[in-house]
């Protein structure tokens, strides 16, 4: 068929599958559907059923049960609410601390260091993330515990303390390890946005009479704002959903929502209640991020399109 034929007789053209677009999209589609969409649909279904029931029994299909969502709030101890509130609060604090630690590092990396030193520091920052989080957390336990490296240093080498101190299992150690494990997620996006800021912009601000603070406020920070938001969203989500660190480093009273969810699933084998907990966590953190964006006059699309 020549080109002319196809113009004069368009109806004869058969629909062709655009394989060049479809093929590369298949892995992404499988990833999204099998690992993200499908499990969440399962969770949603389970959360609306009574304990031990499942969709596969047809009569359950019509019995939508809201008890799993009401139960945590009907509890006289309000355990879930308290734990949930604490998780969110600690995650926010962790996000803020990570930002405070990450920004100067990102700035130093992007605007002060040059050439091989910059590469070396970047590598040093990324290197620990090549091992699993579990190993990194154990390394911190090794440093902080009563017979650990820090106590050895303080007692045996420097002689500041007479007795070893237990540094683990309190909020300080929790935040130290939390910030350590999430700070890279904050550094990298901020670093890359500051990389895009020409030195001349900073010099121009200075030339026009801006001091260091005004230069930061009006020229540097606005450029990095989408990345700061992006980093904050990542760190907040990952903190709120973290299980290892609060479990291993936090004290006995640092119960995290994820631990409660784990307990419902594994200890009391109440998958339906566990599912409801998971969805409450997911939805409420999403709402908080949405509100955060609205309050600072940003949009998710704007934040992600800058990355």
């Amino acid at each position, binding site marked *: 068929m020549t080109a002319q034929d196809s113009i004069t007789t368009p109806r004869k053209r058969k629909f062709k599958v655009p394989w060049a677009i479809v093929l590369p999209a298949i892995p992404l589609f499988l990833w999204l559907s099998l690992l993200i969409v499908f499990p969440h649909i399962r969770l949603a279904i389970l959360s609306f059923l009574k304990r031990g029931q499942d969709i596969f029994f047809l009569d359950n299909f019509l019995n939508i049960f809201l008890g799993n969502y009401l139960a945590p709030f009907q509890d006289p101890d309000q355990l879930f609410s308290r734990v949930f509130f604490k998780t969110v609060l600690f995650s926010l604090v962790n996000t803020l601390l990570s930002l405070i630690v990450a920004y100067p590092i990102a700035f130093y990396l992007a605007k002060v260091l040059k050439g091989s030193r910059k590469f070396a520091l970047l590598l040093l920052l990324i290197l620990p993330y090549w091992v699993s989080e579990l190993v990194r957390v154990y390394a911190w336990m090794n440093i902080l515990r009563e017979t650990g490296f820090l106590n050895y240093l303080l007692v045996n080498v420097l002689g500041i303390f007479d007795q070893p101190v237990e540094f683990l299992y309190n909020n300080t150690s929790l935040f130290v390890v939390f910030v350590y494990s999430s700070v890279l997620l904050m550094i990298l996006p901020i670093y890359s946005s500051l990389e895009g800021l*020409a030195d*001349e*912009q900073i*010099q*121009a*601000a*200075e*030339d*026009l*009479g*801006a*001091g260091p603070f*005004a230069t930061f406020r*009006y*020229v540097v920070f*606005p*450029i990095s704002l989408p990345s700061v938001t992006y980093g904050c969203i990542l760190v907040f989500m990952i903190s709120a959903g973290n299980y290892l660190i609060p479990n291993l480093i936090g004290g006995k009273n640092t119960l995290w929502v994820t631990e409660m969810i784990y307990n419902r699933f594994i200890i009391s084998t109440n998958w339906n209640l566990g599912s409801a907990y998971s969805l409450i966590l997911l939805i409420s953190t999403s709402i908080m991020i949405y509100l955060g964006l609205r309050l600072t006059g940003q949009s998710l699309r704007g934040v992600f399109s800058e990355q």
Partner: protein
Amino acid sequence: MTDIDVELVNITKKFGELVAVDDVSIQVTRGSFFSILGPSGCGKTTTLKMISGFEEPDNGDVFIGGERVNGVPPNHRRVNMVFQQLALFPLMTVSANVGFGLKMSGVPKADRQARVEEMLEKVDLPGLGDRKPDQLSGGQQQRVAIARCLILDPTVLLLDEPLGALDLKLRDQMKIQLKRLQHEVGTTFIYITHDQSEALVMSDEVAVMNEGHLLQIGAPDELYSNPADYFVASFVGESNAFEGPITHLENGHAVLSADPFDFKSPTHPDIRVGENCRLFIRPERIRLMSSDAGSDALYDNQFPGEIQDVVFDGAVARAFVDLGHNTVITVLVTRTSDTPLPVEGEAVLVGWNALDALCFPE
């Protein structure tokens, strides 16, 4: 009070081993348009940054308005800089960009707005205040960058190749506009460029630099007709250049041999027999004659040749004359009378006097 706005006294700047600026002294008169001209990498930007305060000289002193400013940070110097890449703030509107300096010095908002509008008017950008820089054309961005500095009423405005990013036609327009603007506001401009025609068109005075050295300072006309050395001669204006040893002196001329031609050249105390020299002849100094003009030599140097090509450019034309032996020289033909332009393939004579040429030892 002196009428010198900026004075550099023996300044030197090194980056490691590299001497970027070597013992440069410059005086810039108040209200003048002063250019620093030189090829890429010769130290122009570095010189400018020492005036603005982004670099400190390793040696020497910088004076602005009669005050020594070594060690004074950029935000406390009454000079402003238009950067090579403009460096407009991309997230701010044009108005915010132009008003930034006023905001930093604490001018109240209403006052600021009025002055920004007035400034935009002055640089021919009225009504564009609400746009973002990336919604402007290259030439408009240019003017925002200049307005942003001029609004602070600086003693001196520093411009680092501000026309470099523009296309040729716009560059020609902006040259005239810049010169006019400078005239209107009366601020001293120090202008950097590697384009000799920009420097010649706009400047009151030009400093020519090469490899960190200052070679010559002078009015454009002086640089063109009286260059201090061969670099200035070749960099400023168009020339026919030859190179070779001085073979002997003859009738008060030095004779330079660029095999197989012998050129009679002006003498100079620095020029000695046996020394390798460079000879420059401006295209407008060469006369074109028809080959039957007669056998008498009218000029000190006279050679037969053949017209290879003629490039017509309105009032003037450039004739490329092949003298044989792979030597082609450019001759400027001014169209004052009705004499027809030479045509391709025509046999001609070219001639010039020894004193029309410039000769420098290497």
